């Protein structure tokens, strides 16, 4: 066989059909393929999307504005759902003790629940990723300190930590200004109680990735640790983070609801799903079940769909299960 230089290209055959652009690449990906073939993932994604859209456009689609005192009449209070005896066609899911339309309060409540959920997931994710990257990449005592804090935090239930942080923040803010900062207090307390999972996962992946040769190649050209961490290592450890984030979104929404149910969350004037369930809970045994059941069902469906989506994502990203 004669000696040929650099002729390797000639015999190469393109591998994938020429998918162009980010959208094309996404549609060509294994993840999209697995998504379109999983009915459960499709349905849960649809439900989540529907809920998010409903929450986003609540002011447009809600039949009433539950926060406008002018439109609320105490005479309409405790009306059952429209299909029941004594129901009113104006209030599909009935009204609460102040005459607010339950459907509208749910739509507006979901806004707050989802906002707190998303914000606290983003916050805990940023915190966990940074601490995990630092612990995994630098190692040594930095690693020990961060991971011991994580270990200690893991021995307490997340809700307890959220309650603790919430109490401290509440005391620091004072009773008057509390209503204004309540959103941030909730995000802070839920976010701080959930970072550990991200931190530990990222650290584990970093320990694997940092020894791969592409990281050595980056060190070789004198790049600093932060550049390497964020430009090289981070994109390669994001897969598991995405899975945790999805599952944690459901957890964060439930935690917010729990805090609100316990009375330390958002106030009744700006109710979230948790607050609504708490308000309705008082009337459950006097027969006005709809005030608490409908927000409860909404919360359950939302959390379940997000969770199923997270489960699917975990399986789809784990090549061993495929």
């Amino acid at each position, binding site marked *: 066989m004669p000696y040929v230089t650099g002729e390797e290209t000639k015999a190469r055959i393109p*591998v994938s059909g020429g998918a162009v652009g980010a959208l094309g690449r996404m549609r060509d990906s294994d993840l999209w393929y697995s998504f379109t073939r999983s009915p459960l993932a499709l349905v849960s994604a649809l439900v989540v999307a529907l809920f998010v859209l409903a929450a986003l456009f609540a002011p447009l689609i809600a039949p009433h504005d539950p926060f406008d005192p002018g439109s609320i009449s105490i005479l309409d209070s405790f009306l059952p759902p429209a299909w029941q005896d004594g129901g009113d066609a104006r209030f599909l899911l009935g009204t609460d003790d102040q005459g607010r339309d339950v459907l509208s309060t749910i739509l507006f409540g979901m806004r707050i629940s989802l906002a707190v959920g998303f914000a606290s997931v983003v916050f805990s994710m940023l915190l966990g990723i940074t601490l995990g990257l630092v612990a995994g990449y630098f190692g040594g005592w930095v690693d020990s300190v961060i991971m011991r804090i994580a270990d200690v935090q893991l021995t307490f239930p997340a809700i307890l930590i959220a309650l603790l942080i919430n109490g401290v923040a509440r005391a620091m803010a004072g009773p008057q200004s509390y209503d204004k900062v309540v959103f941030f207090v909730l995000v802070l307390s839920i976010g701080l109680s959930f970072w550990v999972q991200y931190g530990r996962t990222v650290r584990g992946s970093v320990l694997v990735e940092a020894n791969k*040769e592409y990281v*050595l190649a980056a060190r070789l050209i004198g790049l600093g640790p932060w550049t390497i961490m964020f430009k090289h290592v981070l994109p390669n450890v994001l897969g598991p983070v995405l899975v945790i984030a999805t599952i944690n979104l459901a957890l964060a929404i439930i935690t917010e609801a729990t805090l609100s149910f316990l009375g330390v969350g958002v106030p009744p004037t700006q109710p979230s799903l948790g607050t609504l369930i708490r308000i309705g809970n008082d009337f459950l045994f006097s027969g006005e079940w709809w005030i608490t059941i409908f927000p409860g069902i909404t919360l359950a469906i939302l959390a379940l769909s997000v969770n199923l989506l997270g489960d699917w994502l975990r399986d789809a990203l784990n090549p061993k299960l495929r």
Partner: protein
Amino acid sequence: MTVAGEVVETETVNSGKPLVEVKGLRRVFDLSKPWLNRMIEREGRILLTAVDGVDFAIKEGETYALVGESGSGKSTIAKMAVGLLPPSAGSIMIDGTDVWGKKSQDTERRMRRKIQMIFQDPFASLNPRWRVGAIIAEPISAFGLISDPQDRAARVGELLSLVGLDPRDGQKFPHEFSGGQRQRIAIARALASEPKFIVCDEPTSALDVSVQAQVLNLLRDLQERLGLTYLFISHNLAVVRHVATRVGVLYLGRLVEEAPARDLFAAPQHPYTKMLLEAVPDIDMEGKDRQSIAGEIPNPITPPPGCHFHPRCPVRRVECDVKIPLPLPVGDATVRCHLFDPSP
């Protein structure tokens, strides 16, 4: 090809002065358990001497091959030579600069530009989330060589064609390439900073034979064209024979033999080198029986005393298990073996 003149201003190749000088190189790893465990379990420290007093020099434009089996310390030397792992003792001088000495940031950058590395596993050495073009462009921007994005892209295309790929391949991701093509991309990245010295750490051991030949030929071709100096790490003697000008044979961290490639393959001196050569499979089927080497490589944490090779050595003498042999000149070679000791 447009490259020859522009890539490296090679002055006089083979001028005879060493580009790389390694002296008394030593590296000890601490494998001990944490302090608290040691106190409780009453265990001492566990130290592993991976590299033990290694000296060699590489002339400009030459290929120096380090050969050894697992635990020989060859990859540790490679990492120290490129500045990824600090040595415990000894020095590495590259083009007059001490790789591990104190120096200004500017000198450090200039030195780093001159040193590059090609890794063993082409599936781990390219960031899977980056496009090939970005991977190759990274050293160019890191060293601030070309600031204009268009010129940089042109340079990336040039590098790709230099290693036998299509300039348009820069748009693709690493997973779209085969192992051999990926190794070409890794070579293009190594060339991007216009280095003088490239450490090749088992660059073909993860590749299939037919592709191995392509990559070895490419490395030789680039050396001739760009006047590169290689440190070539390998466990495969047949491969080394095709690339090396000088060879060092490592056994448990010590350089047991060091000789011009031709001499080493024609007349190996150290008993270990002889055995290694005899253990190479007889592909030509000349009927030569492959000699089995007795025993296995000892655990490097507890190496045998004296000459590390003595428990497996067929010509061992009384002093071999007590006295560490010193490097002795035998013709053009340097051999660490008591057989050549003039004062037995």
